[in-house]
């Protein structure tokens, strides 16, 4: 059975080939498609079993990471994408893709929020409902720098995420971002992410307890590295599992026992298998 995976391209997206390799190794059949093709209807999302929004700097990220591609998603792909998510098909947003999903209001999805969190300044708000319900964002790293380093990720056992199932041990993958710090507008929002099972992945150190810098590379709230939607079929994460699919991609492969594959492949395999089960 062919699992067609749409890898969304856009100006400035640059890890589309990496994501395609990971999907291929996981048993999927990836196609890299420009967002313009989907927006104009030349390609239909509905013809695909899975969607990946890869990393990069969509449109340069000049207005905040992912902002403009989020506008594309909300305004040019709106109904197609809503239907795709509602159908329960797997969606993975990585790094810039995660930022895009958050800023488009797709992650963490419609969560009840106290209205005080929506004070958007003096402007009378006329944003779309998706943006208004955004309780969470990704912003500048605590270090105020772009950083590229390897981190350890643990799946949150109580998560609703369908794509991190079976991750019983921490996995090692790289991060490469400058705006990956997850913040919420008030503490209640953070608690509700956890309570509603929307935290999918956390940064962990080598000992129990808060990861601390640099194990948590960006200062994210509660060491959160990835979120899912309430249905569990949309996963967004800052780290790059697609750059940890081959044995020699690991940073210490010359000094450790040989691996058969990279740690990150399991996420893509989960997604492809889940797509096949639909």
């Amino acid at each position, binding site marked *: 059975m062919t699992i067609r995976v749409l890898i969304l391209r856009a100006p400035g997206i640059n890890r589309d080939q990496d994501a395609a390799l990971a999907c291929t190794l996981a048993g999927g059949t990836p196609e890299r498609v420009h967002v313009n093709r989907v927006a104009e209807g030349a390609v239909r999302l509905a013809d695909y079993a899975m969607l990946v929004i890869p990393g990069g700097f969509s449109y340069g990220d000049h207005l905040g990471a992912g902002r403009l591609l989020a506008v594309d998603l909300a305004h040019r792909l709106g109904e197609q994408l809503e239907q795709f998510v509602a159908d329960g098909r797997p969606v993975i947003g990585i790094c810039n893709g995660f930022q895009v999903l958050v800023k488009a209001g797709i992650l963490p999805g419609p969560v009840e929020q106290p209205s005080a969190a929506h004070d958007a300044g003096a402007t009378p708000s006329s944003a779309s409902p998706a943006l208004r319900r955004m309780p969470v964002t990704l912003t500048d790293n605590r270090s105020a720098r772009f950083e590229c380093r390897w981190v350890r990720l643990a799946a949150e056992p109580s998560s609703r995420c369908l794509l991190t199932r079976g991750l019983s041990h921490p996995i090692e993958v790289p991060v490469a971002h400058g705006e990956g710090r997850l913040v919420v507008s008030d503490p209640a929002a953070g608690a509700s992410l956890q309570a509603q099972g929307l935290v999918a992945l956390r940064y962990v150190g080598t000992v129990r307890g808060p990861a601390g810098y640099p194990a948590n590379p960006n200062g994210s709230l509660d060491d959160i590295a990835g979120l899912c939607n309430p249905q569990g079929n949309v996963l967004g994460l800052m780290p790059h599992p697609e750059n940890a699919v081959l044995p020699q991609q690991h940073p210490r492969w*010359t000094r450790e026992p040989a691996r058969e594959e990279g740690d990150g492949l399991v996420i893509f395999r989960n997604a492809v298998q889940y797509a096949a089960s639909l």
Partner: protein
Amino acid sequence: MPLFLVTVAPREPPPSGVSAQTLYLLGGSALEGEAVALLTDTLLHDPVVQTATWLPLTAEALAAEPRPIASSVIEIAYRPGVTDNTGEMVLEGARRLGVAGLGQARALRRYLLPPDADPEALAAQLMIELVQTRLSYRPGEAIADRLAFYQALVAPPAEARPRVARVPLRHADDDELLRISREGVLALDLAEMRAVRAHFVALGRDPTDGEIETIAQTWSEHCSHKSFKARVRYRGTAQSPLTGDSPDAALHPMLNRLAQGDVELDSLIRTFLMAATTQVLEARARQPVAGDDPDAPWVLSAFVDNAGIIAFGPDHEVSIKVETHNHPSALEPFGGANTGVGGVIRDVLGVSAEPIANLDVLCFGMPDTPAEDLQPGVLHPARVAAGVVAGVRDYGNKLGIPTVAGAVLFDPGYTANPLVYCGTVGIAPRGAHPRHVQPGDAIVVLGGRTGRDGIHGATFSSEELTHTSAATVGSAVQIGDPITEKKLLDVLLQARDRRLYSAITDCGAGGLSSAVGEMGAECGASVALERVPRKYAGLQPWEVWLSEAQERMVLAVPPQQLEAFLALCTEEDVEATAIGQFTDDGRLRVSHHGEPVVDLAMAFLHDGRPQRMLEAVWEAQEYTRTEGQGAPDAIPPLSELLLRLLAHPNIASKERIVRTYDHEVRGATVIKPLVGARMDGPGDGAVLQPLAARPEGLALGCGINPRYGKIDPYWMALAAVDEALRNVVAVGGDPGRTAILDNFCWGDPRQPDRMAGLVRAAAGCYDAAVAFGTPFISGKDSLNNEYRDSSGARVAIPPTLLISALAYVPDVRRCVTMDLKRAGSLIYLIGATGPDLAGAHVWDAGANPGAYSGPLALPRVNLATARASFAALHRAISAGLVLACHDLSEGGLAVAAAEMCIAGDLGLALDVTARDASAHPLVALFSETPSRFLVEIDPAAAPAFETIMAGVTMTRLGTVTAEPLLRIHTGETDLLALDVAALRVAWQSGLDGIEL
């Protein structure tokens, strides 16, 4: 035009006393408040972390604005005409949201200052006058000034009536010719100006402004490399006492030739660099290297295309190019480095290859230079470093090209003239790069629009910098737009695979003039300038023709493919325009709405420049032993010396810089720049596995050491080739299948002493390349790296040669890293050690040469043994016998051993008497003799290792210890013993003075 001001402020308090806000200036004839509100909400701020307010820009609204809590306010914006990427994206977003009426958008930064802050001092730190403008005011005041400031930012450029001017050259005398050259920033000398005059006298007319600019650009040092192609008279025979007797003439043929005394050379590039490649490839044809395919050449393109190209595997080719962007980086570090990276990436696109890795080598003044020592107009080295690193990071990361290799050097000689070397490696299917321009092909320009930016970049780089450079040639400095280049990349690779073009080149220095002039050199070209898309109105025709606006490429597209090509560009949001066609009349014809701007014979343009004649006079340096710091006659304890060496900015960890570069994107970086147990050790070379399904790899290495160049550039060149090869061999690269590149950064070649050094370095390149069997496949020179202060005194940079090496790795699974792997392993030193302390870093660490009475020599590569030694080590690594390997470079054996301990979190016990009981400890520990490595071998593998290495000078020094302690001793006497934790602290502290 209605104008609105949007203020976006962070909710979080600022980390320091100064807080920053983002302002957006929005304008449009039909722009209304409702649209501004929509943009503010959906596009311009993130409500979770920011607040946003907006107001119409009127005196009343500004007066009623809530006053920010600040003592004073600074607002900074890019000057009109300078790339404002953020503003452009606001326009793009508005289009996507269907917001009509927005015509202009500019982004500004506003800084709110506490009472104790000095606005003038802060502004000087925060902005670059060349490209930015600012307004300072007290909250609530200066309303009229603010309105005028905002209006000026969005005011349309002055309409200028396009006109083609004539330059009265035919009757100009020599003084007048020189004045025309100087005042026009033409950088042409008298002989060249006379040749131009003669040409137009024969034509019976004066040149247009466009013609004289086209000639100056084509004949510029940057574009024609006239010093490297000059006739050179070289004199001087003396050898420095530091380099000893003349070595074997058979191994050093070019050194021997220079030793003849009075030598005349016709073109350094032909005599030394291209000749070396020819010699290496002929020797290889006579005696193939294992793995050579007799039917397919290994070197596919050397010194011809935009980048050098070699074969990789059966179906691919790999290209590499290294460029410099020095002058712009001195004036505007971020923009200079940013556009430098963008330029070299386009060179690789210009051979139809997909960029897969970047390398960057950066040379700065000392980070602790006192501010009062700086010449007027010179930025502080720490600021230059921070800006350059940010520029490199921004472009490479946004293009999705991993930055995997490089170096950062500091020397007082780079204070006024920093160096920024940018390199890119690319891969393409074999034979995918077309190079057959046909008359009738459309000339298509695609990518960014053309503006007034970058005028005179090619000629500006051919002059020395002065304290007024910023004022006179500021337009040569630009800000890059990486996303436009990423879109170019995406569209060009598709066009290549669909074979939609017949030739391609990048639009770099010299702009369209250079790109079209070179592509049409063999046939002819005709361009209608009015078709060139512009950023704004008001450009003169010659400015459109010469502009070096970034992110543009020029293609030759056959007429039958033009429609398909333009459609592809539209699909990917890339602007592409046919601006003319290639012809068969051998002329370069450029017009503007029918009026001729340029009409020149290609033959005159490309072959009419009189060959330069340059004098070179070599005088061997006397090396005095009184240099260095610290008390005279004192040599501090060896452990103290080692700790200070580890903290030397040239040796210290570059992790803070490397971490800001994405080295993981593309997933092919199998040996990373940072390696070891904690992933913080300094890897020697980086290794890429470009094709995930195949085990072959590419190793990248760099060699550079200007400290040797100050003594003798000949031996510097050998050391640089040796170091680049050590870096690739140490990780598993095959020295028998390694191609190299030269990049010379030098002072003014018209000064005979500078030219003599250049001759000696080029001669060294020949001798090294031939002896190692490594062909040069590409090279570049950046001359005139001098600063002339207001009193007229000139300072040249140290002679600086970067050698980059690109090596084939047969199987990446055999690669090794430099971190110690396990206690109990044996440690061998490969290569002989001499008293090679001239130019060594140990003198910077507090040891005074006056206190050392032993022999002293410049590091000299032994060409008789080095090649065989590298080949044997490569066989041992390929056989899986080596656990760790690290090359010895700056700081010698002690530094290399310390780095291996830090990276492996293990200790070492090394007995240096095992080598030479009589050697002075400074020699044993800190000599910088080339061609040496430390390797870690499992005791069980030692016999096999020693068998493979038979015939190579090699010494067993000791073992790896579980205790994290570096202990170097002679017999029972410890020379030094230091905890690895202390080594790490020292090594990681060395760049603390640079705020990244």
